[in-house]
């Protein structure tokens, strides 16, 4: 009997008899000869629970995680504290183990969570209509393009700021080939998108413009000016936003943005090496019937009691098939639950306090780091919780040295922004104290000095030694 099943030999015999066949093999006779696998799968034998735990634990040990080092890496996912109640609530079987609420009479819990989540996202973004989640951030950006092409009756050009997350731009590019659309990129000036340059690209063929605020280099964009530039020609303005920034920054709905999307991980979700998290998607009233994904709505039951159901289902693939507004089915309901519990835990005041703390720590970290000789800001635009600097030494070497001191200093920009090959993106959360910031600054300074060799012999790290030994061998 394999793990997690109950059929004993006696069960099997009785069930086969009831079916009227003599063996399990008989049940697979409908698979034609030659297509039945005539050997065992070449996979390791099953493990006992304790062996399996030990094996997975040994893999986990080979990862430098955010409890083992002070993590200043951001780039779209952030090391925020996840409160204990998030785990307690999301691990409840009633939330963990059902599926999509197709039978609303026995899914009121999940549907109410969706309704509360939609309200929270609507409040954060300042837009009236929010769905119950998409997969994650970058694919939500691409999904907004699909809405925009539909809303503009088939315009096929998408104009995207270089400040939008590189993963979002790449995902948009991938999806655009399916949409038959072309993506055009607009550069940054002084750390933010230049509205006047944007205007040059926006015409009657453009379905939407895409901006991100704060942008990938940390700069806070003037969403109002950029949206206005788009809308003059009838294009939609799509903004990707860091949900934590909406604690203190002006919401996209106030700035004339048509669709706001974003990565939900910072809201009570684990880092999880990149997923699962959730994407959020909010829009203006007029785009309600073009929205992708599940949306819960309030209604009443046969006795007049308040209840919740999946609303506007005629948009969706299971009803509308090839005419659906999106192909999504399974989304990220459990992660969205974590999001709404987290926002509730922070509450109205706590959310603002968090935003203020991050802005102040970021200002402090900016000053501490730029006090190091040769470290300079990449731009002077206002920032919220993340900022970009250039280092006077090779970034990868500096990161390796700093990691020896138990610090993940940030995200290197070279691969995705070759124009900033010395660039480093540094992010703050409430978990990175002033003491951590001071440690980071000191470690960076030492690593840069070691790298530049300016103050005597370079301090070779273990990893450089190992690499040298390997090269000899």
């Amino acid at each position, binding site marked *: 009997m394999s793990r997690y099943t*109950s059929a004993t030999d006696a069960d099997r015999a009785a069930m086969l008899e009831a079916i009227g066949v003599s063996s399990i093999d008989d049940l697979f006779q409908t698979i034609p000869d030659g297509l039945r696998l005539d050997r065992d799968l070449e996979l390791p034998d099953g493990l006992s629970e304790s062996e399996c735990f030990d094996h997975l634990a040994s*893999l986990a040990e080979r990862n430098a995680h955010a409890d083992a080092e002070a993590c200043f890496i951001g780039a779209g996912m952030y090391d925020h504290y996840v409160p204990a109640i998030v785990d307690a609530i999301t691990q409840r079987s*009633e939330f963990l*183990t059902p599926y999509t609420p197709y039978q609303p009479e026995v899914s009121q819990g999940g549907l109410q969570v969706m309704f509360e989540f939609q309200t929270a996202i609507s409040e954060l973004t300042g837009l009236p209509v929010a769905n119950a989640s998409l997969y994650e951030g970058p694919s939500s950006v691409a999904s907004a393009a699909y809405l925009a092409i539909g809303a503009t009756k088939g315009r096929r050009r998408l104009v995207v700021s270089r400040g939008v997350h590189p993963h979002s731009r790449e995902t948009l590019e991938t999806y655009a080939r399916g949409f038959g659309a072309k993506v055009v990129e607009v550069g940054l000036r002084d750390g933010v998108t230049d509205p006047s340059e944007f205007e040059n690209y926006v015409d009657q063929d453009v379905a939407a413009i895409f901006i991100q605020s704060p942008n990938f280099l940390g700069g806070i964009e003037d969403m109002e000016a950029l949206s206005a530039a788009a809308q003059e020609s009838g294009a939609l303005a799509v903004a990707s936003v860091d949900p934590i920034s909406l604690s203190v920054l*002006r919401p996209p709905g106030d700035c004339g943005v048509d669709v706001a999307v974003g990565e939900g991980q910072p809201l009570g979700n684990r880092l999880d*090496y990149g997923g699962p998290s959730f994407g959020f998607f909010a829009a203006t009233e007029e785009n309600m019937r073009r929205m992708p994904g599940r949306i819960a709505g309030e209604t009443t039951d046969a006795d007049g009691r308040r209840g919740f159901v999946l609303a506007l289902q005629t948009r969706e693939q299971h009803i509308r098939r090839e005419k659906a507004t999106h192909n999504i089915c399974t989304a990220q309901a459990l992660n969205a639950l974590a999001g709404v519990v987290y926002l509730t835990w922070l509450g109205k005041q706590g959310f603002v306090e968090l935003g203020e703390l991050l802005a102040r720590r970021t200002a402090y970290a900016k000053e501490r780091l730029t006090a190091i000789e040769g470290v300079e800001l990449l731009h002077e635009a206002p920032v919220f919780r993340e900022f970009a600097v250039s280092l006077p030494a090779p970034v990868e070497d500096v990161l390796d040295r700093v990691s020896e001191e138990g610090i993940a200093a940030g995200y290197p920009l070279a691969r995705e922004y070759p124009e900033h090959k010395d660039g480093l993106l540094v992010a703050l959360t409430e978990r990175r104290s002033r003491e951590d910031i001071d440690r980071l600054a000191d470690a960076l300074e030492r690593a840069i000095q070691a790298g530049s060799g300016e103050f005597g012999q370079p301090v070779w790290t273990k990893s450089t030694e190992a690499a040298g030994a390997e090269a000899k061998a």
Partner: protein
Amino acid sequence: MTETLPTRPPTNADTPTAQQRDAVTTIYEKSVEGRRAATLPPTDVPERSLDDLIPSNLLRSQPAQLPEVSEPEIVRHYNRISRRNFDLDTGPYPLGSCTMKHNPRLNERVAALPGHARLHPAQSPKRAQGALDLMWRLERALAEITGLEHVSLQPSAGSHGELSGLLLTRAYHADRGEERPKVLTPDTSHGTNPATVTMAGYEVVKVATDERGGVDVDDLREKVGDDVACLMLTNPNTLGVFDENIAEVASLVHGCGATLYYDGANLNAIMGRSRPGDMGFDIVHVNLHKSFSQPHGGGGPGAGPIAVSGRIEPYLPAPRIVRAEGSNGAAPSFDLSYDHPESIGRLRGFQGNFGVFVRSYAYIRSLGGDGLRDASEIAVLNANYLLARLRAGRPGKHLPVAFDRLPMHEFVLSGAPARRELGVKTLDVAKRLLDYGFHPPTIYFPLLVDEALMVEPTETETRESLDQLADAFESILAEAEEDPRILLEAPYTTPVRRLDEAAASRRPVIRQANF
């Protein structure tokens, strides 16, 4: 069983308790000014005014209206509303095509280890070797299970895998200078298939189903041609039957230069017994939240890795995981590789739903190859046993099986006779099942079957629970013979009774107003 179940709506005597009433208030309605749960770390840096740091035209003028509640109230609220959900851990959930199998708690435990849960996705690969090793191992296992050598774990769900599959198909044909506008899908396909076809810029062409429940090969023969890019298929299909003509189907599709796509929603029928790659499929997606035990979470998260044949491999999404053998007996090392000029590119951020990979990898290692095969065998045994029970008595008369063949892990009944003869629809039978403590099967799908009920018990259910489900169907149909109104007004025992779905779409109230 029936004697104790209400067969009428509650009367005034059944007034809800304070706790039940309380559950239908939202967290916003519980908000009281000045209450809070979180305490944040103190401000340990200079306490500058926000206006000094950020220009005021970029700042929010009013705080977001979030609830103001204490921690005990948050816990009570969500625990109470959770009880208004039916869940797999409480009872049978034979929802067809969804594979509601047990979610091992070991998998939750290993996914929560700090080395997994607290690993930043942009951590240098040098310092994330365990994560990349795990992903590599999962890729190899999925390659072996599907019979297709090259794997990308990136897609976030089945629908995302489908979109990847068609974008791969587009890239493959573009490379050959071919433009093919059409994609074929059977009339039994999941709704995601045609929705994906449109999203990927193709036109849907439906292929008929033959009288045995498989692809109508004659219809297919007429529709294949050099304007066809792909055929998307589920096998066993949504009727639960294995397509006997799959070899011929594959040869027709390949003959015209199209790709053959496998929707892996039904992989739980055949693990270790048959492989999509051996059937001739070029691209497969695997729903890790179905066959590989990731909890469904009330509608996600899941993951939809894809496995492909050699001719599709160059176009796989990037980055990809690469493994280098260690020299002189050193352990192998892993890296992310970005340099794939023919790749379709990214489908999402970072490396995919890693937390899902951890759970599914733990599941595969717990069961091993034999265990996976055994899981599929029991899933098929359970479906066949349940169908054998349902062929007898009233279900056999009123809810006959739609295609009378040996099914695999699921089967489809038709409620057409029940509607005709008893005046109860499939919806009514489903709602009455709720009173009996079962989640109903998938209903009104596939569209091909009138009044369809699609039943997938999975290997999780015991023989006793299958017997109880069969007994419940028998008993419900007896009620319908006696008084159809019992079904027409069901359910009676659930937190709410039938809901007005039409009103929710006509005048949508999709967020809390005025709190």
